[in-house]
């Protein structure tokens, strides 16, 4: 009897698994639940909050229309954050693309110990971001900075040169950009490397026979052919950088004087730490149209540049 019930249950299960319609839904479910619960719902909630007077302390909230947006527009810190976010993103991504391209070209060659170099270059990507950034916090430490001590030891810095990396406005921006480049370089390199190795060797041979030198080969053949995939790397980089606040949060907390404050960190400080959920939500929503625009732009360009 028990065996019979088991068999019936197995049959039922098998019928369910063999049914493609239900199996398909079942397999899609985790992704859908994840997106709805952790992206979709908070996104709608953010829109709702941004149109209300929600704070951390109160249990009630009232609809206030676009008042929060108006307040933000009048707030100079918001504009400073927006400007910083754009500078932070653009400068770091230009550096990432150029450096990643150079690295990928180097790694595309064969040389002894290549696997070790590849491994070392990938390290920043596999290390937890916050731990890596804490490492950088020590490197930039005003008293113990290994950069300052090191450069003084080899005589580059004189006795009166002692930059406070995270404490001087321009240096602070340079520092956070440097760390962001360090963090995103591996991913971009790996993506571009994949693009490079997808170019058939025949094409390179043909270019060599056709008589081009290194630079013309690079700019007329190699770069145009990896362009679509480079744009994908750039898209990832821009989105990661524009929405990221870990680097800023750990290193500078937006300081000094908001000179490294970006939209993501400003939204966090206003909404969560400052308790003003409504303003924080409104600030963070400014990220959305910008990122949609960036994504559409890059995907269109990538398709136009598509070559095969």
């Amino acid at each position: 009897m028990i065996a019979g019930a088991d068999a019936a249950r197995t049959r039922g299960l098998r019928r369910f698994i063999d049914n493609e319609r239900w199996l398909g839904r079942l397999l899609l479910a985790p992704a859908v639940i994840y997106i709805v619960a952790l992206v979709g719902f908070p996104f709608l909630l953010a829109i709702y909050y941004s149109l209300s007077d929600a704070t951390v302390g109160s249990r009630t909230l009232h609809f206030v229309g676009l008042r929060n947006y108006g307040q933000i527009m009048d707030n100079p810190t918001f504009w400073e954050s927006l400007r910083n976010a754009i500078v932070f993103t653009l400068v770091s991504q230009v550096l990432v693309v150029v450096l990643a391209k150079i690295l990928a070209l180097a790694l595309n060659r064969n040389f002894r110990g290549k696997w070790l170099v590849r491994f070392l270059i990938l390290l920043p990507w596999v290390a937890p971001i916050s731990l890596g950034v804490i490492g950088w916090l020590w490197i930039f430490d005003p008293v113990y900075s290994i950069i300052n001590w090191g450069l003084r030891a080899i005589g580059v810095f004189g006795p009166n040169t002692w930059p406070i990396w995270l404490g001087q406005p321009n240096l602070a921006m340079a520092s956070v950009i440097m760390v962001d480049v360090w963090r995103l370089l591996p991913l971009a390199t790996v993506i571009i490397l994949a693009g490079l190795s997808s170019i058939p060797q025949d094409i390179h041979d043909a270019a060599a026979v056709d008589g081009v030198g290194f630079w013309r080969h690079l700019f007329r053949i190699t770069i145009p052919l990896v362009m679509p995939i480079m744009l994908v790397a750039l898209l990832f980089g821009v989105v990661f950088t524009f929405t990221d606040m870990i680097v800023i949060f750990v290193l500078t907390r937006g300081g000094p004087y908001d000179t490294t404050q970006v939209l993501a960190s400003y939204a966090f400080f206003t909404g969560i730490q400052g308790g003003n959920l409504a303003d924080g939500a409104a600030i963070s929503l400014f990220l959305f149209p910008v990122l949609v625009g960036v994504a559409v732009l890059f995907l269109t360009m990538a398709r136009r540049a598509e070559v095969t």
Partner: protein
Amino acid sequence: MATVETRAVTKSFDGSNAVDAVDLLVKEGEFLVFLGPSGSGKTTLLRMIAGLEAPTSGDILIGDKVVTQMPPRARNIAMVFQSYALYPHMSVFKNIAFPLDAQGMHRDETRKKVEWAAGLFGIQRLLQRKPRQLSGGERQRVALARAVVREPVVFLLDEPLSNLDAKLRTSARDELQQFQRRLGTTTIYVTHDQVEAMGLGDRIAVLNNGRIHQLGTPQEVYDDPADIFVATFIGAPPMNLVESEGIVTGFRPEHFLPHEIYHGDQDVTRFPFKVTRVEYLGSDRLVYGILEQPFPAAHVISRLPSNVSVAVRKDEHHEFVVRNRDLRYFDRASGKRATPPSRTTPP
């Protein structure tokens, strides 16, 4: 126009020689074919002449100048690849103009040259298209136009027809030969297809295991193979080989015919054999069989043209003959050609 010469050129990969001390002289304006099975080193040899691979040892000369250490661009050669290797992001015009851009040629002159090259291959109307919008045959023409446009002294062609379908291949072969004759440029052509090799080449270099087994005109290579490898590699079906007493006797299937065909006064060798299979191919019949006493039981094939009406059926015993002047002898140990044994008829 130039000669191409290799002097003891060797290329080793991981200790074994892909190309083994090859000496070769390609004459000015000649159409030379490298023919060999895959892995014979023919493409490696071509790539070394192009400068895409550096020889492990030996020298390469183009037009009596040693170019062994020079990069491809300094050798004034053009190459057509099996995949055509068109630049996918450039229009046909830009593809063809690319070698000229690399020379820094003036724009007007470039345009004139590109139009001339495109005209040679009838692709003027395709100049604005991208390679992906072209058919296989059109791509091949673009690749040829790109090779021609710079007026190089040597053309190197690496199986340029192997990606075309059979019908197109025949006409492309014809065009290729015509344009080579017209330009008179020294050409080296790599293929594993013996029909292409026989049809195109002024001379054929038959390669195997990195060595040239024979260098000669198509007729020499076919009629007088230098060794057993050439004898069996060229010809379909290959030459029949019968081995006895250290000597291998070879004869082509089309020379192995029923004795009724020949008049009594011809100097022939008789081969009694048992038919095991007959294939009717329209223009020919292929007769498979096993030789009988006094010969060792070797498998042999006869190709009977359709105008030979002798009835041949499975399991029958026949006496086929080969004219003695069509017999070739090889030394079994070395595989090389040997002098015919003193006796002219079998015991």
